[in-house]
């Protein structure tokens, strides 16, 4: 039986949900599923075993670098005979997945939303051309595939093996230093399951608290259109779209956003889209699951109050 390697990712002390989504995708391909856990603890290992891993391989890495992760993952893949590796299509995944593919002498397909077939011949689907089309791509192993967060349904499983990897970071030309994290405990955009975004319709930076309050009540991340970013109302890190972040939450709430194609490019694969816009002709309504034609300054506070009520 062939093996598939997945690479888990942590955020602070927590296992990212995408780490479990990779396992769900891997289980669908048959083969033994091995999760590489870098700098994680026993709780993370247990979570991975319950979400699809047959084996968890723990490894340490003193300083983060794309090369370090790729070197460790390649060594584990070789030891385990894994010719296929799945990694998150996250900022980090994009750092090292390409390097890993070269190390495995393999192909690479990035940002896929569906994974089918077997571990030796995989067929994936991915959005291309700013989400205006989807490509179905056939990949022969060896290969590395990065998977878009929030694109897979989780599975349950009962693996039990935890091993020490003992792989080395090898020769590394540059490491990440001087981390400066902003936004503190706030939910991160790219793996949020709910995103509330504001556009030019929010009128000015003084009105973000109206959206932030809704975010706090439902545990959402705050996003923005490029118009709001270019106006200087909010840092670029919040921008969703073709020249911003790609998000794929269960629920995307667009407040005062017209729905330009470049904005849709970043949120068009969200499961449910809610549009709050006072213009009934706004293009966002063409993709919205639920539309509210009204002034966001009255609807959003009412929504926050209602959620407070039902979520207690």
């Amino acid at each position, binding site marked *: 039986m062939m093996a598939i390697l997945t690479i888990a990712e942590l*955020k602070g002390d927590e296992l990212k949900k995408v780490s479990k989504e990779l396992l769900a995708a891997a289980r669908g391909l048959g083969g033994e599923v091995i999760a590489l856990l870098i700098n994680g603890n026993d709780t993370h290992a247990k979570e991975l075993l319950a979400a699809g891993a047959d084996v968890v391989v723990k490894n340490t890495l003193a300083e983060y*670098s*794309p*090369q370090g992760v*790729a070197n460790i993952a390649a060594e584990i893949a070789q030891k385990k005979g894994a010719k296929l590796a799945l990694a998150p299509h996250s900022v*980090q995944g*994009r*750092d090292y*997945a*390409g*390097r890993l*593919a*070269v190390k495995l002498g393999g*192909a*690479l*397909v*990035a*940002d896929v939303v569906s994974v089918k077939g077997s571990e030796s011949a995989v067929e994936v689907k991915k959005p*291309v*051309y700013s*989400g*205006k*089309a989807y*490509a*179905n*791509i*056939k990949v*022969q192993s060896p290969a590395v595939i990065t998977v878009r967060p929030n694109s897979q349904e989780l599975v349950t499983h009962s693996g039990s093996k935890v091993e020490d990897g003992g792989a080395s970071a090898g020769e590394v*030309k*540059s*490491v*990440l230093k*001087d*981390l*400066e*994290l*902003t936004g503190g405990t706030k939910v*991160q955009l*790219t793996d949020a*399951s709910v995103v509330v975004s504001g556009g030019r319709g929010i009128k000015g930076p003084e009105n973000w608290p109206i959206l932030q309050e809704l975010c706090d009540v439902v545990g959402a991340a705050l996003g923005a259109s490029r118009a709001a970013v270019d106006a200087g109302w909010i840092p670029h890190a919040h*921008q969703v779209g*073709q020249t911003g972040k790609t998000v794929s939450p*269960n*629920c995307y709430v667009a407040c005062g956003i017209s729905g330009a194609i*470049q904005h849709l490019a970043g949120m068009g694969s969200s*499961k449910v*889209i*809610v549009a709050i816009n006072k213009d009934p002709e706004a293009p966002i*309504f063409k993709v*919205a*699951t*639920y539309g*509210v*034609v*009204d002034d966001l300054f009255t*609807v959003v506070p*009412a*929504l926050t109050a*209602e959620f407070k009520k*039902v979520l207690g």
Partner: protein
Amino acid sequence: MNIFVLVKQVPDTETRIKTKETGIDETGIKWIVSPFDEHALEEALRQKEKNGATVTALSLGPERCVEALRTAYALGVDKAVLLKDDSYNVFDVAYAAAAIAKYLQSAGADVILAGHIAIDSQSSMTPAMIAEHLGCANINNAIELSIEGGSVKVKREVEGGSGVMSSATPVVITASKGLNDPRYPSLKGIMASKKKQIESVDVASLGVSAPKVALASMEPPPPRPPGRIIEGDSPETKARELVKALREEAKVI
């Protein structure tokens, strides 16, 4: 110092994409330089203005990509090279990276700049793969770059903030939007670019044997389930109705 900028030619964002079984219908498409590559070009030109450098724009693709290289000339690059591949599959990242790396190996590149993602294949992987082939560092999502002597210092985006990575050259760096504001080509630059020489290298002559991925089919985006306008006589009733729909019907919150 030799700076190479990877310039990918992609359909204009506003272009209507019509899918065919094996790709997109290219008739009527307006081709542009991928937006993030513009940030890479801008940064190369600024570094040249500051420290002196030879800036070469490099593109991989069919003959029409010379237009993207003319745009690079119009902005002020010194040289342009097309790695010509008429049957280029824009989704075959490993193949493109292997070919570009093969060319760069003997080109004496010190700094290789690229956009952090191309808006056609939406992969954002080619630069890191090139770095692995060259055995050098890759630093993604740069928002500040300084080059001094044989080393670079890059402030980059990470999830939830930023961090710093430094490296000796050669190094592969990708540009995020925050790095700079790209300039527009001058009329004089555009006129001059028409006469500039573009070196053309047949990709087949590079002898690349990288794995290939096959495009099985293309399709329009999956249809979204029909939407519903939430009616109500006040913002409060609409809010109540929406919360009910999100919790009981869609079950997403």
